[in-house]
């Protein structure tokens, strides 16, 4: 495929607001996970929480969208001059020619979860705001309106691959001429459904997550907002070179043990990028730190790359940001491309015996010309992206 230019990007997570905070944390090996203090804090877990969401409501014309997820979306938009970059694109192409494709797994469901605690004696729900908080489109609608864009817009919600798959759809929008620029990204915020849901499947660790470690005990959930601006212009310093999408066709919440679906997605991404496995300098793994994911992903990585391509999971820094993981980890790749380093697999000290890919436990300076990012979700939804500089 023709490379797609990435002309602006920004990430906000527990590492801080904007790219500089993330870069600094990655470089210094300083993670953002803290002991669970969310809501009633009854789960023994570590979480990647964004500070300050409670104090920054959405006010003014879009006040009806106010909820934790849209507050995070709003804060994310305000970093790194992203809003200004989009407004310039809007001036250049016209509001109708800029599309908005964002991923989330739970949108503003927290609002409804809390409303259920406040049901009246007849069981009625007083303060559900379905359209502006709960519905999966709420966040995309909020961002679209906050940027006054009029191009086509939708939410992609395929669990933890959501905000990787928006890149694939955006590339098709641009190629098909549906838009001249696309705001892609994802926003997912802490809520009870995911905290207790993953816990019910015994996938949540009671310590900071340790991807690929022999003693790993599961994931740490995080929240994040991230965006990138994709444009149909000549190659830029950072570009989307390829994407691959596949289904496991195996199980709703367990990956195929040989990483069959993951392998298919990575192969497609390389093939669309027109590069071989040896031309990838860094793989940002999905690496959730659940026993099953890390083993299956390692199998897929070894089958494609052998033991020669450096791999890390950055979920020890940010936590697993679920529907925002795709964009957050795409931005980790952009920082690796721009600043010439490969981030560590934080918190992990002894790799599980039997894992064979080249998993890095320490930061490493490296010239990164091309990076591949993996995102896999429940329902066996896989997406791999290749970025280049």
């Amino acid at each position, binding site marked *: 495929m023709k490379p797609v230019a990435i002309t602006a990007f920004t990430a906000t997570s527990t590492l801080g607001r904007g790219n500089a905070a993330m870069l600094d944390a990655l470089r210094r090996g300083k993670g953002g996970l803290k002991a669970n203090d969310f809501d009633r804090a009854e789960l023994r877990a570590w979480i990647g929480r964004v500070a300050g969401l409670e104090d920054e409501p959405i006010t003014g014309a879009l006040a009806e969208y106010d909820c934790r997820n849209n507050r995070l979306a709003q804060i994310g938009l305000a970093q790194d001059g992203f809003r200004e970059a989009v407004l310039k694109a809007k001036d250049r192409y016209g509001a109708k020619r800029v599309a908005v494709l964002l991923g989330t797994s739970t949108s503003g469901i927290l609002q409804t979860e809390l409303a259920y605690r406040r049901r009246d004696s007849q069981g009625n729900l007083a303060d559900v705001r379905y359209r502006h908080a709960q*519905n999966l489109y709420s966040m995309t609608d909020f961002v679209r309106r906050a940027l006054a864009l009029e191009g086509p817009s939708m939410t992609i919600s395929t669990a933890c691959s959501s905000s990787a798959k928006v890149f694939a759809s955006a590339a098709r929008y641009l190629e098909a001429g549906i838009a001249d620029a696309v705001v892609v990204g994802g926003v997912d915020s802490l809520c009870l459904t995911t905290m*207790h849901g993953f816990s019910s499947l015994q996938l949540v660790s009671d310590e900071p997550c340790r991807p690929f470690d022999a003693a790993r005990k599961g994931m740490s959930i995080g929240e994040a907002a991230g965006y990138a601006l994709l444009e149909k212009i000549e190659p830029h310093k950072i570009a989307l070179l390829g994407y691959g999408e596949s289904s496991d066709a195996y199980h709703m919440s367990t990956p195929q043990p040989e990483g069959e679906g993951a392998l298919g997605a990575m192969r497609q991404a390389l093939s669309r990028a027109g590069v071989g496995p040896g031309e990838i300098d860094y793989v940002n793994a999905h690496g959730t730190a659940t026993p099953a994911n890390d083993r299956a992903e390692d199998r897929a990585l070894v089958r494609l790359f052998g033991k020669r391509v450096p791999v890390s999971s950055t979920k020890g820094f940010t936590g697993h940001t679920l529907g925002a993981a795709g964009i957050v980890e795409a931005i980790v790749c952009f920082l690796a491309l721009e600043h010439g380093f490969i981030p560590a697999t934080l918190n992990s000290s002894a790799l599980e015996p039997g894992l064979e890919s080249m998993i890095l436990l320490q930061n490493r300076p490296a010239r990164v010309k091309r990076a591949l990012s993996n995102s896999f979700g429940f329902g066996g939804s896989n997406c791999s992206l290749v970025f280049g500089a």
Partner: protein
Amino acid sequence: MLCGEAAFTPTPVQRPVPSLLPPAERRRCAPSVAWALAVAQEAVAQSGLDAGAFAVVFASSDGDGDIVHRLCTALATPAAAVSPTDFHNSVHNAATGYWSIGAHSQAPSTAICAYDGSFSAGLLEAACQIAIEKRPVLLVTVDLPYPPPLAPHRPVRHGFAAALALEPGAGLEVTLDGAAPDSLPLKDFEGNAAAAALLLLAALARPGEALVRLPLTERSLQVRKRG
């Protein structure tokens, strides 16, 4: 009904049994998944193609209200113990996950929401995939009424599910348009986002050329059917 020759009389229908799934999963999957698989199977059977030939686009505004209600009810209790099955079935892409398992298909799939414009957003995604990836796409759309405490906050009178097996050269042209969307041929389905598919189905049911405008946020998706 779609041709306006018969009147619509609401008739309760049984939740279908998705024969595609292993017996244990047939009863366990959510109603929205059962409906999605039932219409998807019918459309694929009519297409004459293998199920595995299709990429899948699932479009729904509201997902599965029964599961949302059960999860939120459980989360409001002191123990907040949710059913692990409800949790993994709560993802918006549950239907495509079950489809890939039942159809043994590793083809790409996606799950989309654009509130009242969800069907059109799904059709636009399907059209882009057909144009760029040059492969058949199965577009599946489902929206069902919400259970009582949520129903006043998202009033949907009747459930609706449809699937379209689309191939390159299917004779449909999709373009973005600034005009207002057409009104639904069956008024009873107003408020059900998936039922926007009725506009397209009505055009397909009638012989000859047709032009319909489907709802998409603040604008419409124009679909031209060649005769």
